[in-house]
C-alpha cells in the first residue's frame, strides 16, 4: 500500500523545494587514516541459498558447520555468521536490490557511502563486478542520487580496466587532457552567460559551475593515476571470457582472482560483487544438474531439488572460501594480511528463494580484524527494542572504517557488540 503522505506528494500537492545536491568535501567525510579496517568487499548471490542448509543448528562459537558452508570450516576463526537479520523490506526478486540499500531504491547502497569516505586514495573509488549479463533486477550498488551502478561482467574488461595497456592509456590520457580544454571553454561560456542573466538564473548556473569543477577534479585525479605505471602482475587471464550463463561459476572464480589483485595492488578499496543466477543448467563435477538454477531455487521443498540447489550453493561458497584464503595469504601495502584489514560481507538479498521471501537473509562477515568464530542467532520472532536489523550491521562496518555514521536506512544502532 502506498503511504498516504507519499502519495499526496507524488501528485504534486507538496511545494517542497528540491535540495541542491551538496557535495561533501573530502575533509568533512574525514577519509580516515588510522581506522582499523581499510577495505570493504560486499558480495551478494542473486538466488540466495537454501538457508536451512546454510544456518548452523547451534548458536555460539561451538557450532557445527552447516552443509553448504562446510568448505569454510578451516577458516571458521576468520568469520562470523548471522541468522535472523534482514531489512524488514518487501519480497520478490525485484526487491533484491534492498540488500545493500536497506530501503527501496532510489537510495544509496552502503558500499557507496564507504566509497565516498575511503575511495579518494585509490585509482578507482569503487568497483562493481558481476559474471556475464545478469538479469535486469540484479542490482546491488547505487549512488547517493539513487542511480544504479552497472557492473563489469567480462573478466577481460575488468582486467584491462585494472591493468590497462600502454595504448589504452595513451587514448585515455589524450581524452583526459583534451577534455580539460573542453571544460575550460564551456566554463568560459558559462561565465559570459552569467553576466547576461537574471539573479535567479545566476543562482541556477551555480549548479553548473560546481558540477563542472567536480568533473575537473575527477579528470585530474584520473590523470594522476594514468601517469603512474599500471601494476605489473603475472596473472594468466584465460583467452576466452566465460560469458555464457552456464559458465558463470567459472567466471566467478576468475572474478575473485581479479578482485584479489585489485585489492593487493591497492587499485581500489571498495568492491561490490553480484553473483548472478538465472535459468542456466550447471554441470558440476562433470554431471549435469537436473534443472536450471532458478528452477532449483524454487525447489518446492523437493529433497532432490534442494540437494542440487545446495550443490550450486556449495560451489559458490567454495569459490568464496578460496577468495578468503587468498586474502589471508596476500599482504596489503603495510605488510599486513589483506584479510585483516578488509571487511568482507557475504550473503544475499533473498532469504528464501522458494517463496521469494526477503527476510532472514544469509549473512556472513569475514576479515576486518573483527572478533570471529561465532554464529549469532538473532531472535527475530521475539523482537525487543534492541533486536538488530541488517542495517545495524552495516553501521558497524562503516564505523569500523572510521566513518562517523550513526544511522543508515532508517535504523540507528549498531552491532559493535557482536564484532568487537
Amino acid at each position, binding site marked *: 500500500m502506498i*503511504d498516504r503522505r507519499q502519495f499526496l506528494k507524488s*501528485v504534486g500537492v507538496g511545494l517542497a523545494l528540491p535540495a541542491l545536491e551538496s557535495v561533501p568535501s573530502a575533509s568533512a567525510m574525514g577519509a580516515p587514516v588510522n581506522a582499523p579496517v581499510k577495505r570493504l568487499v560486499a558480495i551478494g548471490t542473486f538466488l540466495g541459498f537454501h538457508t536451512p542448509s546454510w544456518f548452523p543448528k547451534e548458536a555460539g562459537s561451538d557450532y557445527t558447520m552447516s552443509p553448504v558452508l562446510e568448505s569454510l570450516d578451516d577458516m571458521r576463526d576468520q568469520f562470523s555468521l548471522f541468522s535472523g537479520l534482514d531489512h524488514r523490506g518487501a519480497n520478490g526478486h525485484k526487491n533484491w536490490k534492498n540488500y545493500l540499500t536497506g530501503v527501496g531504491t532510489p537510495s544509496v547502497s552502503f558500499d557507496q557511502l564507504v566509497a565516498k569516505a575511503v575511495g579518494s586514495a585509490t585509482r578507482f573509488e569503487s568497483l562493481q563486478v558481476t559474471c556475464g549479463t545478469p538479469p535486469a533486477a540484479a542490482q546491488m550498488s547505487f549512488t547517493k542520487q539513487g542511480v544504479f551502478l552497472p557492473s563489469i561482467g567480462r573478466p577481460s574488461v575488468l582486467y584491462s580496466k585494472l591493468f590497462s595497456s600502454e595504448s589504452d592509456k595513451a587514448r585515455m590520457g589524450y581524452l583526459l587532457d*583534451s577534455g580539460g580544454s573542453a571544460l575550460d571553454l564551456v566554463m568560459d561560456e558559462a561565465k559570459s552567460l552569467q553576466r547576461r542573466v537574471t539573479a*535567479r*538564473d545566476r543562482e541556477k548556473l551555480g549548479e553548473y559551475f560546481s558540477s563542472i569543477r567536480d568533473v575537473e577534479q575527477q579528470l585530474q585525479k584520473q590523470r594522476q593515476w594514468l601517469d603512474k605505471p599500471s601494476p605489473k602482475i603475472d596473472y594468466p587471464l584465460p583467452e576466452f571470457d566465460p560469458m555464457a550463463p552456464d559458465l558463470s561459476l567459472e567466471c566467478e572464480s576468475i572474478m575473485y582472482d581479479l578482485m584479489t589483485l585489485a585489492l593487493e595492488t591497492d587499485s581500489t578499496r571498495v568492491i561490490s560483487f553480484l553473483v548472478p543466477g538465472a535459468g542456466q543448467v550447471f554441470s558440476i563435477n562433470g554431471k549435469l544438474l537436473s534443472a536450471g538454477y532458478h*528452477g532449483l531455487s524454487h525447489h518446492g521443498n523437493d529433497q532432490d531439488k534442494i540437494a542440487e540447489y545446495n550443490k550450486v550453493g556449495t560451489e559458490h561458497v567454495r569459490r568464496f572460501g578460496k577468495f578468503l584464503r587468498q586474502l589471508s595469504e596476500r599482504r596489503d601495502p603495510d605488510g599486513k594480511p589483506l584479510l585483516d584489514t578488509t571487511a568482507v560481507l557475504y550473503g544475499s538479498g533473498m532469504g528464501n528463494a522458494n517463496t521469494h521471501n526477503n527476510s532472514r537473509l544469509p549473512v556472513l562477515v569475514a576479515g576486518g580484524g573483527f572478533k570471529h568464530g561465532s554464529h549469532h542467532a538473532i531472535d527475530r520472532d521475539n523482537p525487543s527494542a534492541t533486536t538488530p536489523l541488517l542495517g545495524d550491521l552495516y553501521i558497524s562496518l562503516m564505523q569500523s572504517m572510521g566513518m562517523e555514521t550513526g544511522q543508515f536506512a532508517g535504523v540507528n544502532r549498531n552491532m559493535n557488540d557482536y564484532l568487537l
Partner: protein
Amino acid sequence: MRWRTICGILATVPALVKANEETAIVPLPEHADKFLIEYCLNCHDEEEQKGGMNLDMMEIDWRDPDAATPWILAYEMLEGGEMPPKKKQQPSEIERHVMLQWLDEMLTERDPPGGTVLRRLNRAEYENSVSDILGLRFKAPDSFPADLEFHGFDNVGAGLVISPPLMAQYFEVATAVADQIIPPAGEAAEVPVETAHVGPDDFTLNFTTGHPIDGVLRMVSSSDPLARGSVWPNRFEARVTGLYTVKLDLSSYRPVGGHVPQVKLLAFPPQLGSFAAASGLRELARVHVDEQSAQTYELEVDLQKGETLVIHYENAALNSDGDDGQLERNTADLLHIFREDPLLGAAWKVAGYQRSDRGWSWWNRIQQIKNAPGFTAEGFDPESEEVAEFARRMARTKVNLVETMCCYRFFKGPGLDVHAMTVTGPLPAERRLVEVVGNEFTSVDFTGTLTAEQNYRLISSRDLVAGSLVWPSRFEAKVSGVYAVGVDLVPFDTGNAFFESREEHGLLEVYARESSAELYEPVDTMRKLAEFRFDPKRFNTQEYLTEVELVKGETIGFRWGNSPLYSDEGSRLFSAKSFAPLSENRRIHAAYQRLGRAKEFAAADYYDEVMRLAQSDELDLDDPALDKAPNFETGPANGLFARLARQDLIRHGPAVDIVKATIDGPLRLVEDNEMKAQRLRTEKFMGERQGRTDREYATAILQRFLSKAFRRPATSEQVAKYVAIVIEHTADGRRFKDGVHLAIRAALCSPQFLYRGSEEGVLDDYDLASRLSYFLSGSPPDEKLLALAAKGELSEPHRLAAETRRLISSNRVNRFLDSFTGQWLDLRLLPEIMPDSRLINWNDNYLKAITAETQLFIAEILRENHPLKTFIDPDFTYLNSFNARLYGHDFKGDRTMERVPLERGGRHGGILGQASVMMATANGVDTQPVLRGVWLLENILGDPVPEPPANIPAVEPDTSGATSIRELLTRHQADPGCASCHSKIDPPGFALENFDPIGRWRTSYPIYEMKGEKVVKRDGLAVDATGQLADGTQLENVTDLKRYLVENIDVFAKCLTEKLMIYATGRELSYGDRKEIEAIVARTKAQGNGFADLIVELVLSDSFLTK
C-alpha cells in the same frame, strides 16, 4: 497580543539590501493590515500558520522569489468565499472588495506573467536534441540520473538540477557521441584464423533446451525464448566482424511420419540475454536434416564482433510459447504421449501435479510410480474424457508440463541430435576467380536467350531490369572490394534480319545489382560500373576487362546498352520506334491484323505464322481492315510486336553473345556498408574543405554545428572560441578531425546547449522557437521554425498560430502527448503498480491496452480539435479484447485497438472512467477515496488542497469488511479542522468508489476468505458513491460528477490550461499567469472550446511569450 517579525532576510543578510531597497520592500497599507488582523491572523499568524499559511508581516519583501505565493492564495480564498471560514466572523462586502482590489493591483504589478528559470534539457529532450543536431539515433545510457518532478512535471526549470554525477555523464556521453561522428584513428590489427571445436557438452543449456544423451546433444523443443528452445556454444564468439565457416554435424533422431527436422542457425549477441527471442535474431542459414546418421553441413556465415551461433530446431515436437493456442496444443501433445505409452500415462495420472513439478524432477517422480513393481496401465484409457480432462489440467502448468514432456521426447524422439560444431574464421578475404558461362546466367523475359553454343544472346535494352539485364546466378561479393570483371563476347548478325545491321560501335554496360533488387526496377536506379565498346562487325571473340568496386552482397549485371529493341525513358513498354522495321512492313502489318491477338500460338510459333502469312498470297493487301495502324501505347500490340522483334533478333541478329564472364577478386578491400555510413556521417558533418585553410574550414563547420546545438545563430565570438581550440589542437600535432571531435565534445557540455531560455523578458524569436518546439515535439526547433525566427516572423501571431497547428499535426506531437498525459494523468505510475492476484490475473497485455486507450483517446481529441468536454464525457473510446474485458464491453475484435462508439453520460469513457486513470489513482490492492479526491482536486478540478497535518494518521481501510470506508471517514465531517479540506476532498473521491483498483465497475466491496487451500471472493458491503459538492450539487455516482463537469466545463478548462502552462513554460505560475489563463479559457470557449484551439491560444498568450 501578537508578536510581529521582520522578514528573516533583513535580519540575517543586511549586506544584500542596497539599491532596490526602497522599491523592494513594501509596507502593507493600513487598511490591509487592519483587515488581516481582523479576519486572518487568528489562524494564519507566525505562531499558528494554519495550513502552512503565514500572513503575519508588516511589509512584503519582493526580493524573495516566493513572496507572492501566500498572497495569491489569500486572493483566491477570499475571492472564492472559502476564507474566512463560514463559521468565523465575516468581512463586509465593502471590506472584502477593497481588500481584493488591493491584492489584485499589487499582484498584477509585482507578479506579472513570466519568471521561468533557466531550463536544463531533461532526459528525453536531451536524447532528442543530440539525435537531431548530429543526425544520430541516440539513447542515454542507464547510468543517467533520473530527472526530478516539480509541480507535477519533469521539465520545470527549478526542478532540473545539474549535479556532479549528471555532469560526469554528459562529459562521457559527449565523447561517445563525438566518436560516432568522427571515429578515433585506429590501426587495424591482423586477426589470425582460428577454429573452435564445439562438442555436445560445450553448449549452453537452460531449463530443458537440450539434453546430452548417448554422446550427442539432443533437442526436442522449438520455443521462442532461447532459454526454452535453443542451444549455443558457451565458448565461442566472433572476435571480429567477418566471414566464418561453420560445420554442423547433425542427425535426425527417430523421425516419425516423414518428420524432417528443420534447423535455423541464428546470430546471437550474448548481451541480449538468455531470454532473447529466436524469432528476433538474424537468420544465417537453414538446414533440413533428413538422415539418421550424422551428416556434416558446411555453411559460410557472416558474424558481427561478439556474436555467437544459435541452433534453433524450428519444427520440434514441443513448444511452450504462451500464444492463444497453447493450452489446446499442449493438451494434445500430452494425450499423444499417453497414446504412445499408456503405462506412462497411467503413472502420470497417479502422480498428478505437485507444486514446482517441472522437467526432470516431475519426470523422475512419474518414473518411480511407473517402475514400481506391479504397476499397470489397467483402467487407463487415453481416449476417455476423464484422461482428456486430466491432460487439460496438466497443460495449465504451461512451461512446467512442456519441459517434462521434453524428458519423454529426449528418449522417444522425434528429435535433433547435435554431434559437433566447428567454427573457423575470420576467413581472410580470399581472392577467387569465378567463371560464368551461358547457362549460369539468370535472365528474365525479353533479355535474351541461350544459344546452341551455350552463349547468352542479349537482344534488348529496356529500361527495366527485366528485359535488359543478365547476371550470374551464383555470384555475389562476399566482401566489399575491388573485383576484376572480364567478358568474352561475339557480335551476332546474319544480315537477314528486319533490323538493320549495326554500323556504329556496340555498348556492353556493367551494373552493380543488389540481389534483392526487383525485376521491374528501372535500370537507372542501379549503379553503373563500366561500359565496353565493341566492334559489331568483328565476328570472333572479343575480350574485355576492367576493375570495378562491389559492395558486399552485390552481383554484377550486363546489358546491351544500344540494342535496336529498346524502351523510351521511364516506360515499361518497348518503344514503338524500335518496332518500325517490322510494323512499317506492309505485309507483316497485314498479317498481324489478320491474326489478331493470336492467343493460340506460342511465341516462336506466332513469329513463324506471321512470317508465313506475310510471304503467302493469303493476304488481301487492299482490304482496309488490314490497314489499321496498331496502337503501341497499350500492352497487347506492344507485346505482340515485341515478340516478333525478339524472335527476329534471336534468329537473325543483330545481337551480342556473351561467351563467358569472369569475376576475380577481391583484388583489394573497400569499405563495407557500416564503414560507408560512418564515412558519410563524417562527410556530412564536415562538409567539403574546398581549398580553405584550417581556420576557415573550422569556422564553416562550427558556425553550422554550433548554431544547431545552441538553437540560434552562434555569434562570431562564440565560434571563434571553438575554432581556437581546434587550431590549438592541430598545432599540437593532432589531426584536424581530432580538433573538430574536441569541439563537438565541448559543445555538448556547453551551457548554451544544456540550458534553454536565457534571454530576459519577452522571448526573442529563437527562444520562442525552442519553447514552442520542445513543448509540442520534445525536440529542438526544426529548420522551418529557425528560418522564421531568422526573419523575425515567428512571433507574428498568425505565423505563430500556423506553426503551432503544424506541430500539432506532425507525428512528433506524440512525444508531447506521451510525456504530458503520462505525467498529468500519472500514467507513468502504471508499470509500477502490480494488481492483487485475487482481483485479476494481471499481465502486460492489460497494461498496454489501458495505456493505449488513453493515449489514442487524447490524441484524437487533439487531432480532431474536439471540444474540451470530450475529455469528460465522450461518445467514443478505443478498445481491444483486453481493456474491453475490464469494462464488460461486448467487443468482438482482437488485440488491435479499435475506435468504438459510446453512449454519452455513461459510467466508462472519458478520463473519469478509463481504467488507466482509475488504476493510477489506486494502488493495485484497494481504493482510497481520499487519495482519489485529492487527485481530482489537483488534476481535474484545479482546486488543490494543502498537505495533511503531520500528526494525524492515515485512515487504514478495514479489509475484513466489517466497517465501510465511509463510516471510517465520517469523522472528517465531525471535526471542523478536518472538514475544511475534506468537505472538498471526500465527495468527488467517493464518486469514483464504483471503480475498483483496476477500473472495473463494482457495486460492492469484495471480501476474500480462505476455503481450504483456495481463496474465495464474496460480495461484502455495498459501495456508496454518493456525496454533495461544495456548491450543493448532489452526486449519486461518477456520472453525476461527469455531468457537473460538462456543465461547468470552465472548471476543467482552467485546470487543464494550468497544467499545460506549467508544462509549456516550465515554471510555477505567477499571479499574472493565472490571469492570463482565465483569458485563454475565455477566448478558447468563444471559438468552440476545441483542444487544439486551446493550445494555440495558450501559445499566443503573454505567459507563453514571456520568459
